């Protein structure tokens, strides 16, 4: 009796002539997700079969595959020769000992002596005999035993459709640069865009020694947690903005700290993106969530962007919706660790919420913008996570 995982893909089937490309990327991403586990991925009509792993590793394989975008659903199945005794033995393993159920049969092998209805009735009967506490309910069963009789003389039996991550294979929709802070929002924003097939790299700003190495490590952990959704590897850029913050603090009005800092961050982000070949910037901004995320705040930070689109997928979400997603992705617990992203020593008590462009420009005019950016770019480190 063989153990396999059936992987059904999501939107890829909508693709026409370049479907082959989408599928190749999808398989490559599955391969990367399963790195370190012995396995084989086989294509079978309209889906993939993952096999050859140790039975004890089934759960690990399933949980890794569930993070690969492009997956619609997965089932853990037993594969047996299409012999009655073997089919019954496998069906008993996927069947629960009690509750209401039905058998659903898919017969690809039209030469099989029973038709689907007859087969379902027969297998249902065998299961009822094996488990006296079972009852049949074909309309609203508590669970279903699926039998798939294949052309090559084998039958697959399973009872569950586990939802996959959905979306499109990462790498099929270009490359984007995610500004990641260490909070709850940015990983969620990244996850949403990766889901549509975009390969992410991350950019983080720190202000050592005002922020500590633990805070940076926390962000690295967040990137590591996003990586399974991002095709198995993520590049991370780390830029030190300490001197920028110190200069703003020294020369500009206190309430413009965040507004000005964000403009610097966006400028640096666009330069990194253009230099490294990213096609857009992604931020975790949510309209009105904090002082700098008002439409005026966004206008001010967006104004420094010269050519790239800035995707802000969370703009329409409430905080609790973001938290919910963060929990589902698995980044929440790391996000809430109490390290600071931009040390609060420089945080103004009353930041401007509706900065006027002329004031912003006047404050910024007090700084050597180009020099500070060049210095920050100089500090950039690149990590592969």
């Amino acid at each position, binding site marked *: 009796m063989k153990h396999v995982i059936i992987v059904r893909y999501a939107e890829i089937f909508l693709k026409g002539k370049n479907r082959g490309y989408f599928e190749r990327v999808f398989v490559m991403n599955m391969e990367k997700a399963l790195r370190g586990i012995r396995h084989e991925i086989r294509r079978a009509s309209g889906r993939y079969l993952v096999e050859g792993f140790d039975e004890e590793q089934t759960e690990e394989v399933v949980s890794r595959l569930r993070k690969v975008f492009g997956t619609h659903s997965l089932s853990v199945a037993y594969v047996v020769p299409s012999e009655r005794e073997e089919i019954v033995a496998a069906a008993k393993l996927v069947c629960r000992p009690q509750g209401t159920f039905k058998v659903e049969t898919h017969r690809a092998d039209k030469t099989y002596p029973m038709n689907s209805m007859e087969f379902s009735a027969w297998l249902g009967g065998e299961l009822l005999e094996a488990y006296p506490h079972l009852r049949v309910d074909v309309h609203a069963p508590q669970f279903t035993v699926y039998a798939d009789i294949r052309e090559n003389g084998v039958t697959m039996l399973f009872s569950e459709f586990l939802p996959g991550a959905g979306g499109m294979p990462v790498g099929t929709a270009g490359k984007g640069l995610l500004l990641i802070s260490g909070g709850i929002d940015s990983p969620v924003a990244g996850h949403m865009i990766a889901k549509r097939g975009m390969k992410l790299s991350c950019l983080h700003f720190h202000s050592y*020694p005002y922020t*500590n190495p633990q805070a940076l490590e926390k962000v690295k952990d967040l990137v590591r947690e996003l990586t399974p959704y991002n095709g198995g590897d993520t590049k991370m850029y780390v830029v030190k903005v300490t001197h920028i913050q110190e200069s703003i603090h020294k020369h500009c009005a206190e309430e413009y700290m965040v507004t000005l800092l964000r403009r610097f961050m966006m400028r640096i982000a666009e330069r990194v993106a253009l230099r490294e070949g990213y096609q857009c910037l992604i931020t975790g901004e949510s309209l009105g969530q904090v002082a700098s995320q008002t439409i005026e705040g966004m206008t001010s930070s967006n104004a420094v962007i010269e050519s790239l689109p800035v995707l802000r997928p969370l703009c329409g979400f409430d905080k609790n919706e973001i938290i919910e997603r963060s929990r589902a992705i698995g980044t929440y617990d790391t996000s809430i660790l109490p390290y600071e992203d931009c*040390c609060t*020593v420089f945080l103004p008590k009353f930041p401007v919420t509706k900065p006027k462009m002329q004031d912003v420009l006047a404050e910024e005019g007090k700084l050597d913008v180009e020099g500070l950016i060049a210095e920050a770019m100089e500090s950039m480190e690149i990590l592969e996570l």
Partner: protein
Amino acid sequence: MIYLDNAATTKPNARALDEARAYLTERYFNPSALYREGFELHLELKAAREHILSCLADPAAFELIFTSCGTEADNQAIFSFARRGNAVTTSGEHAAVANPFAELKSRGVEPRFAPLNADGSVNAEKLLDLIDDKTSFVSVIHVNNETGAINDVNAIAKAVKEKNPRVVFHTDGVQSFGKLPYRIGKDVDLYSLSAHKIGGLKGVGALICKKKLRLSPYLYGGGQEGGLRSGTENVFGIKTLEFAALEKYGGRREKYERMQELRRRFFERLDGSLFVKISSDSSSPYILSLVARGLRGEILLHRVNDRGLLIGTGSACSSNAKKRYSRVILACGVSERDADGVIRLSFSDETTEEELGEAAKILNEEARSLSEDMQ
């Protein structure tokens, strides 16, 4: 690199490592084994126990059990004897005592915390006020690990027992062992210590206990340490503790006085407009707790770190207020603003005058430049 965080851990004593090496490479046997090689180790552990004990107390009146760390020794002491009524401790304890005390509540024992004086020592009068007929256990830290304040535990224990002779008295000696010239007084029942604070290895501690008292085991198993601490003994680690301790206690008073002098001169070199002392002059000379005025301790820590100076801090760059300020520093009556700026420098007998001179220079320069950046 200048290492001034010796209260966190110390560099292992090279001679102790050399002396103990054979117990790792050749004499790796299980001390419970019945063949000669094993039994010899059993005897060596017995000797080590006596040697360490004799540094501090009369081996005829006390016994010593090896544990995996100071925290384990504290826990075993507390949960062995704080079993009914109330248990009294100070607000200046290390987490290894403070947190077990907080846990006592769920075990039906009322924990009581005595307030501190400004230097971090316990207010002994107020501590005595907390003791009544129902008090079963008292724990007072010997040297405060953040400020270095010394509690006169022998005198406090005596006063406690005069008020309630049935009390079992424990002291956490992790920061005093191998540093203070001290003998365990007759009213102190239990004393915890740790190897890696005096040049021994991490992973070894000990609990010294008056012979007539009955400790309870914390771990059950093969019955090592007289059934009080099961688990195969870390012979190598214990040997490093033994060697390190014997070395520390040779000429203890002279070393202590040398350190007092070094610390005094070090503080004189610091810029008085930038640094204020929390530690009092009578505190352990191995610890100096300071407030860097108007600065954040952790930022200063990173700055001096980049210049090769390693120090400790009493606060962390955390947005969580509970984690940000040291509970002990606040209990000394330091304001939250100053608590943000607390740094802790801690020394060992190996610390040199030159190192301290250089450290003072780095601290002055970095604190000055940081205050300018923050203005």
